[in-house]
């Protein structure tokens, strides 16, 4: 991993797709949050990888999530991890439990960070970010 130099500290980290995750990032650009479904054991998983974490099958299918979920936990960031996120504070980092089961990390859009509560219903928003990347974020449902 490259070290971030002081001159680059204001730039947000960009996700770099790899061979496992290319379809995931492509899906987001089309408005879909892809989960992996295992036809052999029924496991549904996030994130994108070559095998089912439950049974080891390589026979995985990508399916778009419905986009609904609830807040399993959260933390409102007041002191940013470096200059790149400073202008965004306070912002709510969410640990979202998707209706399909898997959990994921995201952050709140279209809502006040101070109003986030446990078990709050949230809905996926595919939001363009720097560098042509589309990030899966969530708004209050």
């Amino acid at each position, binding site marked *: *991993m490259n070290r971030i130099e002081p001159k680059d500290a204001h730039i*947000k980290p960009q996700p770099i797709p790899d061979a496992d995750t290319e379809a995931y990032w492509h899906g987001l650009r089309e408005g879909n949050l892809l989960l992996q479904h295992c036809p052999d054991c029924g496991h549904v998983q996030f994130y994108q990888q070559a095998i089912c974490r439950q049974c080891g099958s390589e026979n995985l299918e990508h399916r778009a999530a419905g986009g609904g979920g609830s807040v399993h936990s959260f933390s409102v960031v007041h002191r940013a*991890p470096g200059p790149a996120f400073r202008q965004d504070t306070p912002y709510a*980092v969410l640990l979202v439990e998707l209706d399909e089961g898997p959990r994921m990390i995201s952050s709140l859009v279209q809502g006040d960070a101070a109003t986030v509560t*446990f078990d709050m219903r949230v809905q996926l928003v595919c939001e363009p970010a720097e560098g042509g990347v589309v*990030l899966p974020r969530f708004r209050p449902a």
Partner: protein
Amino acid sequence: MKDFMTRLDPTAARGEPTIRGKAAIVGAGQSDVGRVPGKSVLALATQAAKAALADAGIERSEIDGVLCSSAFAAPFHRFSIAFSEYMGITPTFSNTLQVSGATAATMFNIAAAAIAGGLAKNILIVGADSLLTGLSPDLALRAMTESRDQQYEMPFGIPVANTFAMTAHRHMKEFGTTSEQFAKVAVIHREHAMRTPGAQMTAPITVDDVMNSGWVTTPYHKLDCSLISDGAAAFVVTSAERAASDVRSKPVYILGAGECYTHEHIFLMPSLTTTGAVQSGAMAYEMAGCRPAEIDVAGVYDCFTGTVIMMLEDLGFCLKGEGGCFVDDRQITYGGSIPCNTHGGLLSYAHPGMPGSLFHFNEVVQQLRGDCGERQVKGAELGLVHSLGAGFATQATTILGSGATL
């Protein structure tokens, strides 16, 4: 996810040969700690190592094993090798370990196994970093956040504090743990640091001070968070046979070891409020042949106040969900059931990153030697150190004992 409890059933190891009592810590040393400008990471490491060798009365030339943690401010690919060259040592057993904050305890566990297995005779354990003056504050934080996944976590601006904060937040939701109880952890650690020479923070604080210190990431305020420091610690570990014959210090024996790694991403943590410390602790107790109630003094990783509360539960010092009340009752200080972090911990003594938990080891070693002066826990014979990191992803426990516990 759900089957990791059975997979790591510690009773499976019952009857197998273990490292219990095979190796001992016979030397402990520290560099200058806290704000230490003008010293490179390798210079700090060397200062600590020389102190540890002198403490043991073992010559540099006798060291054949070197284990180090890596350093943010000295990003050698092979820190242990760079350190050995700098120190003038040619080890025949060496590695640089990296499981975040848990690295400290893993170094002792691995050193004991290497000695028991004949890979080395005298091992130097060294951790050093310079997060306060070797990196700018922003880069220090940035260095921490770069340890989170670049695709699934970092794009959302997660400081490492945030992963721990979400677990603490959930603990509040599930068990009614309060911000005041978190603050109490910080207050007690400060009381401890006030009695420790060289501690970075020694001004007394109150629960209100913690609550009014400003948010970092909810539910954590500034004073719920550990320090950013410079510093190094080093230890000499040798065989029990040698420890009993010709070393200068009173040996402290490695009696039990356990580790557990439940996840990499915080969203795959099996439970936000019950961690792999349950397994690492159970393995260590089983190997040492003791119960939590028998531990006299502990070093419990305290990167955040809530971390201590959760670990007290998972290590069996109190019941799940009762950690907040346990701290409120002052059970983690003198007169309580398990005095913890009597040097002040990462919250008030120092936290130079991966070496941070080595200071817990240093304190527990001094306690078991009976060398802690006014900080001494009376009659301390059995100690535990628990190191963890990366949002509870990495967990390592070491149980230590005086000669009386062998």
